[in-house]
């Protein structure tokens, strides 16, 4: 961390030094990329950005499409859904309906960032600033990533997973493996521990423990089902009602992996792999606004700093600003291009406004952010980046000014009423409510139905009972039956799902059979 006093000020506040730009053309070369990276790294160091080492890989558009279709992972197991993704990406690209994103960056150590060869030099510089210093420092600094993912192990783990899945395909056939993967993917979002910190991923440990675990897993499952006493007539009815599991379980895949009676060991291993990957992606799903906002804030700040130092030309800045503006464009709600709030815009706006609150606070800021207004902005931004996820970040740092700038408003849709109601807008009485509502929108457990393992009928038909607790009476969507079929394939016996509101079952789903009445 450099000292706050010799840190550069905002763009334009210093007189331009002598201009000796790194380059003047728009064609990139490896040498130039190296030079730009060197200068950007110097700027990043001025602001105390702490990153993993970078690995920049220059790839072609086709390779970018490959990377796209495997959720950015450099290696992955084979599955038709990635092929589907690839087909639709390449079709869109060939027809010119969509440009490819400029970059993909992987939370690994070293941090791998892809640059597309088609990009111009200013674009390559933007991507380096955005991915190699923005995202990279976020991966390294944010508490969720620190606690939940192990950047140094992910690539090895992916290789392990791919090899394991392909061995299974050889031994058990592509179809059998595909079926298990389909079912795991259907429950993937329910394959994460939301509160408990998971054990770190390690390919070496996985291989090492695999045989050991094979035995252990089977024994564990056997134990569960062996301890079932015979259904004696005279058995104590209280004992019979003993619940399994004791407490509802949020991690469906974990529960199935450990307890499904009929699965073979390799099937349990595949469930485990999908669940580990879900856990790896879980922090990303919770920090999209922050992560993109942070990276966007830094590409903007670092390249402006380059300009201040006379390292880039006016032409460079024009091209850069044009891309930057496109990235943070937020169409209004009534635009045909509107598809929800742009996370880049929201995140960028909050971070840039945080800096303003630190550097030039107004009375409003002092009232709303007494602890932050007038403090060292680099420290404050780092604090915000490190200790929050989207929900709490918005709750904590969304300022009235950003709400006004984005003209945010909340709309209520109640199926009991025949009109929508505007409940809050960007004005004095609305700020707090608006901020709360927007924060809640980024709470994953609000976005996804709350479904947990409720119980197993271990003494009867071995059926699995899942329980859905609706929030604000919002029912389950139309895929529910289909997902239940996948759950049934994994569990091996009947699976039931009940939506329970205030003790009343409001909806129920069964696969394949409903339980006999009065069971």
């Amino acid at each position, binding site marked *: 961390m450099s000292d706050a006093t010799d840190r550069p000020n905002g763009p334009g506040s210093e007189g331009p030094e002598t201009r000796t730009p790194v380059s003047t053309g728009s064609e990139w070369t490896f040498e130039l990329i190296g030079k730009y990276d060197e200068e950007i790294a110097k700027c990043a160091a001025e602001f105390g950005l702490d990153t993993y080492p970078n690995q920049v890989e220059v790839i072609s558009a086709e390779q970018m499409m490959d990377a796209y279709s495997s959720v950015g992972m450099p290696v992955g197991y*084979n599955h038709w859904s990635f092929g589907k993704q690839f087909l639709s990406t390449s079709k869109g690209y060939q027809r010119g309906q969509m440009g490819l994103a400029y970059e993909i960056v992987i939370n690994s150590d070293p941090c791998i960032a892809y640059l597309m060869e088609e990009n111009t030099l200013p674009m390559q510089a933007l991507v380096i600033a955005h991915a190699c210093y923005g995202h990279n420092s976020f991966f390294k600094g944010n508490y969720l990533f620190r606690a939940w993912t192990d950047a140094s192990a992910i690539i090895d783990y992916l290789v392990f997973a791919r090899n394991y899945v392909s061995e299974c395909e050889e031994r058990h056939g592509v179809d059998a493996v595909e079926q298990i993967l389909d079912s795991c993917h259907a429950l993937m979002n329910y394959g994460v521990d939301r509160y408990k910190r998971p054990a770190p991923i390690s390919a070496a440990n996985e291989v090492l423990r695999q045989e050991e675990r094979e035995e252990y897993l089977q024994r564990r499952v056997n134990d569960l089902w062996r301890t079932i006493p015979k259904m004696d007539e005279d058995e104590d009815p209280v004992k019979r009602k003993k619940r399994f599991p004791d407490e509802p379980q949020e991690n469906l895949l974990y529960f199935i992996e450990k307890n499904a009676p009929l699965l073979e060991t390799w099937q349990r291993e595949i469930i485990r792999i999908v669940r580990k990957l879900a856990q790896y992606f879980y922090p990303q799903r919770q920090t999209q606004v922050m992560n993109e906002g942070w990276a966007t804030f830094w590409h903007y700040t670092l390249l402006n700093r380059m300009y201040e130092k006379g390292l880039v030309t006016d032409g460079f800045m024009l091209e850069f600003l044009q891309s930057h503006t496109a990235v943070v464009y937020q169409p209004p709600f009534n635009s045909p291009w509107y598809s929800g709030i742009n996370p880049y815009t929201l995140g960028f706006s909050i971070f840039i406004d945080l800096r303003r609150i630190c550097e030039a606070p107004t009375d409003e800021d002092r009232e709303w952010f007494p602890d932050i207004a007038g403090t060292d902005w680099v420290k404050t931004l780092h604090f915000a980046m490190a200790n929050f996820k989207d929900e709490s970040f918005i709750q904590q740092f969304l300022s009235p000014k950003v709400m006004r700038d984005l003209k945010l408003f909340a709309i209520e849709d109640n199926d009991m009423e025949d009109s929508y109601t505007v409940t809050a807008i960007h004005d004095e009485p609305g700020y707090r409510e608006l901020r709360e509502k927007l924060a809640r929108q980024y709470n994953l457990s609000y976005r996804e139905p709350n479904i947990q393992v409720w119980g197993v009928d271990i003494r009867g038909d071995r059926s699995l009972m899942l329980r859905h607790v609706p929030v604000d009476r919002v029912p389950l969507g139309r895929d529910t039956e289909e997902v239940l079929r996948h759950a049934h394939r994994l569990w091996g016996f009947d699976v039931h799902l009940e939506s329970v509101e205030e003790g009343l079952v409001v909806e129920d789903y069964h696969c394949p059979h409903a339980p006999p009445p009065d069971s």
Partner: protein
Amino acid sequence: MGMTHIVDRRLNGKNKSAVNRERFLRRYRHHIKKAVSDAVHRRSITDIERGENVSIPSRDTDEPVFHHGQGGHREMVHPGNRDFVAGDRLPKPEGEDGQGQGQGQASPDGDGMDEFAFQITQEEFLNFLFDDLELPNLVRKKLKDTETFNYVRSGFSTQGVPAKLDVIRSLRGAHARRLGLSGARKKKIRELEAQLAELRSAPADLDAAFSHEDQIKALEDEIARLKANVKRIPFIDEIDLRYRQHLKQPKPATSAVMFCLMDVSGSMTQMHKDTAKRFFILLYLFLRKNYKKIDVVFIRHHTSAKEVDEEEFFYSRETGGTIVSSALKLMHKIIESRYSPAEWNIYAAQASDGDNWNDDSPVCGKLLTDRILPLVQYFAYVEITPQDHQMLWYEYERVQERFPESFAQQQISDPSEIYPVFRWLFERKAA
């Protein structure tokens, strides 16, 4: 350059997704097959060789997940307010129950496409087109009738002709032998030399009785003997020689000839001929998938037969009666003069409207049975007529009884039947 490592990956493989793409096509093969089969009917004759757009209902390709449905009570924050104030009420759109605006990404059952559309390549198109089809009797030809051979490398032998001497192998062997034979002796030499050096550097004893002279002499002699010994090891010996060995492997004939026989008599209309052409094209593409080199021989006939080029085959008109045997005779003659069955896989497809001079049909049957079918891999007859069969068909039925493996016939009464009939004729028979 600090901690950054810049790598050029552009030359690495770009088809990382190939397997996943293949998996996708495999999973939806039934949908794709149907699209391909529809395309065959729709496309013009010359247009069969390109990729195809395929659409699959999104419902079938979606991956289901638990998500929120419609209904209940929810609130969403949106940007770009114009003039709303808190408490404003907005009418819900008619009919769409509770479909809030801007649900977009949150709810997968909002708008979005109903079809998942993608492209398959020409090769994939042909693969699906000919999926499960096979050339009958291909195997038999490969194993039994092969008369050409490939020589393949199969290791080394200690005997052979000088032309096949493998110099590197031989020298490597010689080197190993020399090391093996001299190793122990060289080691011994080194030991003795060390002893020698030690003795020589030892202070000379005045007493002659304890002098090292004798020992030194003995060591020197022994070293000289060993060195001479080592020198005598030949640089290369006969047992070092290695010769490349080759095995004679039967080579399946990779060339095929396809005979297209068509009746062009007055009764064959342009529609008949188009149907025949499409059938022939399918056969041609199918053969091309299996063979590197294909010759196509076009024979048309009315009362007499003639070998022609493609253009004339399909487009010139003739009138008059029909003598099918003339074409069969010509085919046989061409096989004998140009396509020895030892080197060529011979396929034939015959198209006609079934019309023949009645006395000629038994001749055809006999020609096929006695002279043609023993030479060919497969002979397919398609009768393009919506009407009842005539003499020729019944004659051919008897042929089929005798040669169920290499002869087949089918009727096409409508262009839409071309592809199904083709499939039937070349369906992979249970082994």
